[in-house]
């Protein structure tokens, strides 16, 4: 069994299950939109906020909503033991991580788009002066967040307090990514802030770390 074929089988599984019962998307998008709505009310007339602030609000919402979605996703693996069945298969376990990473990132990106639409409507930020950079921030942010959330979910899979531990571990580990995507989003809204090159490097470096670290330790992490 080649790694790529296993990867495609596992990606098909996640997409098929989510298409049939879109729990990840429904949970994270509805929770995220609600967060945007509550934040909009709490900050009152968000149009007065600087670009960094509104960007921070968007990414804080996406991070929290993604945590809720990842929990729903893991539940499907545990409900009938399907996740353990996959661990028994003769495939390099890092492929299991990569397939899950890609599917989680796709679902985060989809729910992130819904949250961004709600954010434009409710918080009234300026339209992005650099739409390409804005799209890059959303895509790369979803990819980085998908990677770290998948890895942390694996780390906490065997613990009883995983509902609490996942966000507690996720947010400190995701700080470099969080700062990077918030800055990139702010630059996309307000180009006068300066050059975003360092933050592009920060986000890409984070994604590169997500490519390497789980490949080294995922097999060890998944054995109880």
């Amino acid at each position: 069994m080649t790694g790529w074929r296993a990867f495609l089988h596992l990606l098909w599984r996640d997409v098929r299950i989510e298409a049939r019962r879109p729990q990840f998307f429904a949970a994270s998008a509805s929770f995220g939109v609600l967060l945007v709505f509550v934040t909009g009310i709490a900050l009152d007339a968000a149009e007065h906020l600087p670009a960094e602030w509104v960007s921070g609000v968007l990414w804080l919402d996406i991070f929290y909503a993604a945590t809720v979605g990842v929990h729903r996703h893991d539940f499907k693996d545990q409900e009938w033991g399907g996740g353990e069945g996959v661990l028994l298969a003769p495939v390099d376990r890092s492929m299991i991580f990569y397939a899950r990473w890609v599917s989680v990132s796709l679902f985060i990106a989809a729910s992130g788009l819904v949250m961004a639409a709600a954010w434009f409507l409710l918080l009234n930020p300026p339209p992005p002066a650099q739409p390409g950079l804005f799209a890059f921030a959303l895509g790369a942010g979803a990819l980085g967040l998908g990677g770290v959330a998948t890895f942390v979910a694996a780390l906490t899979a065997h613990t009883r307090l995983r509902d609490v531990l996942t966000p507690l571990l996720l947010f400190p580990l995701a700080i470099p990514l969080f700062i990077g995507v918030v800055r990139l989003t702010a630059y996309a809204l307000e180009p006068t802030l300066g050059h975003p090159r360092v933050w592009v490097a920060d986000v890409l470096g984070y994604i590169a770390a997500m490519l390497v670290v789980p490949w080294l330790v995922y097999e060890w992490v998944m054995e109880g």
Partner: protein
Amino acid sequence: MLALEGVSKAFDLRPVLEEIDFTLAPGCRYLLSAPNGSGKTTLLRIMAGLSRPTRGRVLWNGAPLDPRGRRHIGVVLQQPMVYGDLTGEENLRLFAGLYGVRDARQAARRWLERAGLEDAGRTLVRHYSKGMRQRLAVARALIHEPAVLLLDEPLDGLDLEGRRSVAGWLDETVSRGTAVFAVMHDTASEWRPDVRLTLRWGRLVVVA
């Protein structure tokens, strides 16, 4: 063949398994029965590569168990290890694909028929009864024709006909040279082992 070399396991310093050395022989039926909490499931999980021993190694043909070794092992644990939001056929196709079975679709249909689930092949597994899920779990474990079959209560939840049918598959599998290592609480009359084992103070002991 699958072998355990000095395998020990402890949870929070409490020893569960102690220095187990054991090699499975091809075409042999093993039955492990022991009281609750004696470490039967822990032993199966270690043999399957789902859990790491505290000391010792699990070997496949003399080398540490790796993905290539896992290709030859089929496992049924207490959960069916399938996805509730996939149909029976989709689950079997997924696992056949992951094990590199040629023509996964055909293999899935063949095993659905053998499991008596051909009419339920397009039904989501979450709508299956316990017995149907158990038959699907055994079909999933056998779809890649493993050389070793590890089973935790494989007849649990099955009616008499289901028990006979699954016991028949196991006998047929053994006749092809597969070693079957089953943990059963209730030493079911439908399935006769060649070797009976138990766990005493964490050590694997041959009873008969």
